[in-house]
């Protein structure tokens, strides 16, 4: 391990030396990185970059901030056209899409298996960036889910925090009806144009759109069926505030219009950004689907860093990722405290930041809880067609509101998905 790192450092130095004579000398030693969330991964990467530059002044960072859809589109355009000089040195990719890129563009991403010690990371993160036994990425954040709820609204409706611990979705709906009756607030915001909520529910019962071998798994997917049934119940109970798209959905809870939100841990920063709501929020494990194999832990999103094979600063970029994301425990404490980022480096969880109570959440040790739930997230195979099937599922969500039969809906999703994945 150590030996390898020395070698890559040496290679980086040699590269930097060689590029002094190249026409692009001005950019030698500058690692360009694409990511998308200014309050989250962009800020975190800036922090990581500063830490690295402090120790290695010859390496500087140019962190470019695009919208997430823009990053994906640019990456796909550049790789498709074979125009690698337009690409950055490091790019952030959402875990759902990792296999798609790795398999569609073989040779585009640098293999890190020889350099990085993957035994220290959450296994599911490593698995999703592995192709033919080779590992290509640097695991970053986890999307472990939590059930964030407004203590004040629930209290008005007569519920204590213990009343929402380890409940089922049926119970959640009952509580939701009470909350609306007593406070006039809806229980949750629901974005009918996004299947994120469906994926949370489905994965909480250990299944995905694909089975372990990557075959389409829709019609006989009991978890997906239960997830859709639950959503139909929510739609019919009317305990939700409809929103279209991400921003409206975020607005539903930041504005205080709804009593709870169930999503990935990365939302913590957004929740906490509403300083006037401090002390009013609590976090519980997500409700369970109540079917066989269903639990209270799931995942939504999460992403990882990838180095481009064509990168002129490849060695430098790899050394940088390895030194910060695979080794720097202190770094993980800082990004957790400041940004709410739950990393997937297991050793980081013994740090003191994970033990601390959070005043915003009324002194709960939320990070300890998330860390605990993370270890319970059922591993699934995201496959290479998650986007396609997700689109098929999204297309059929509105029909749930009109009372469509779930088995029919599953059949339609199956046939649309089959048409898409070839």
């Amino acid at each position, binding site marked *: 391990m150590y030996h390898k790192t020395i070698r890559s450092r040496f290679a980086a130095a040699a590269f930097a030396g060689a590029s002094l004579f190249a026409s692009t000398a001005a950019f030698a030693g500058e690692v360009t990185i694409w990511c998308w969330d200014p309050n989250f991964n962009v800020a975190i990467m800036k922090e990581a970059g500063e830490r690295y530059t402090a120790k290695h002044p010859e390496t500087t960072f140019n962190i470019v901030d695009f919208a997430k859809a823009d990053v994906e589109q640019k990456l796909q355009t550049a790789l498709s056209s074979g125009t690698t000089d337009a690409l950055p040195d490091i790019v952030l990719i959402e875990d759902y899409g990792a296999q798609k890129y790795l398999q569609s563009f073989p040779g585009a991403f640098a293999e890190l298996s020889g350099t990085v010690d993957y035994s220290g990371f959450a296994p599911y993160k490593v698995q999703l960036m592995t192709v033919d036994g080779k590992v290509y990425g640097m695991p970053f954040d986890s999307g472990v889910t939590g059930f964030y709820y407004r203590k004040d609204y629930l209290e008005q409706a007569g519920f204590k925090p213990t009343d929402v611990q380890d409940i089922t979705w049926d119970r959640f709906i009952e509580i939701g009806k009470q909350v609306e009756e007593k406070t006039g607030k809806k229980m949750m915001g629901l974005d*009918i144009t996004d299947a994120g909520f469906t994926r949370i529910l489905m994965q909480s019962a250990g299944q995905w759109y694909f089975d372990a071998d990557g075959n389409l798994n829709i019609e006989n997917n009991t978890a997906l069926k239960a997830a859709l049934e639950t959503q139909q119940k929510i739609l019919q109970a009317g305990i939700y505030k409809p929103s*279209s798209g991400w921003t409206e959905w975020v607005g539903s809870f930041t504005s205080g219009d709804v009593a709870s939100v169930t999503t990935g841990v990365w939302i913590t920063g957004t929740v906490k950004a509403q300083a006037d709501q401090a002390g009013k929020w609590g976090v519980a494990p997500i409700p369970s689907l109540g079917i066989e194999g269903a639990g209270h832990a799931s995942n939504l999103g999460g992403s990882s860093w990838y180095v481009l094979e064509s990168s002129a600063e490849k060695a430098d970029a790899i050394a940088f990722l390895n030194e910060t994301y695979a080794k720097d425990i202190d770094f993980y404490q800082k990004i957790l405290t400041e940004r709410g980022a739950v990393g997937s480096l297991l050793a980081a969880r013994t740090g003191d930041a994970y033990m601390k109570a959070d005043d915003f959440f009324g002194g709960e040790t939320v990070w300890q809880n998330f860390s605990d739930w993370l270890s319970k997230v059922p591993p699934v195979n995201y496959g290479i067609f998650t986007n396609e099937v997700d689109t098929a599922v999204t297309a059929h969500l509105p029909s749930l509101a009109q009372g469509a039969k779930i088995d029919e809906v599953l059949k339609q999703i199956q046939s649309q998905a089959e048409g898409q994945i070839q």
Partner: protein
Amino acid sequence: MALAKPGGLKRYYDVNGWLFIAPALALIGIFLIYPIFRSLFLSFYSGKGMMLKFAGFGNITRLSNDPVFLKALINTTTFFVIQVPIMIVLALMLASLLNTDKLKFAGFFRTAIFLPCVASLVAYSVLFKSMFSVDGVINQALMAVGLIGTPIGWLTEPFWAKVLVILAITWRWTGYNMIFYLAALQNIDKSIYEAARIDGVPAWARFVHLTIPMLKPVILFTTIISTIGTIQLFDEVYNLTEGKGGPADATITLSLYIYNLTFRFMPSFGYAATISYVIVLMVAVLSFLQFYAARDRS
């Protein structure tokens, strides 16, 4: 002049003719014609990303079994069949109103109605999203006047999402078309209208029997341009629905589907290219039909 000889004249014509159009032809050749053929070539290939294999007519077979393509095709057709006529009629009526003799504030009205055209597609999509959100100003206004009891899910219900897209495009482009008609109307001799008016021909009849026939070439031109624009509809639906064409694929268009196949899904360049040729074909057929319909009556 040195052009006395007929051969010299022809030469003069040709040299200048080619020289004047050469820059445009060169650019069109490189940046339009070449990519079109490259796309055609791609449409016979399939595979994941750059792992392309020759597929013959495989992509066409795939088209016929693809429910999303069918939805996109139906949506695109719905949009132009409903939106283009509404917009053209609206634009015509506004133009003839603005052309009223001695109209006060004509400049103000014209400027106001043309104003939407200066809005960038991104900016106006952001605006419309905010105006038509569940709590947005439009729902508030409709509820205040008692037209609706509960908010309309403009972007969460498939039917209303289609309505919103049609409203948005109509808002953005009606003024643009109106300017063409207004310009054409102002070229028409006012005395014809005066004569008709004195003869007691009512306003609607003057509109139908005088205005429309005289504007026929312009109407044909704007109809074709609008049809082409609507068939290629992308920016608006992309920005209104976060690139998804939702809800329930209610607003997905062919161009958006091509974009998704290229940039969001496992990249299927060959298949995407095949669909882009469906658009080319649709536009070609429709333009021909519109020309034909216009020619038939004259």
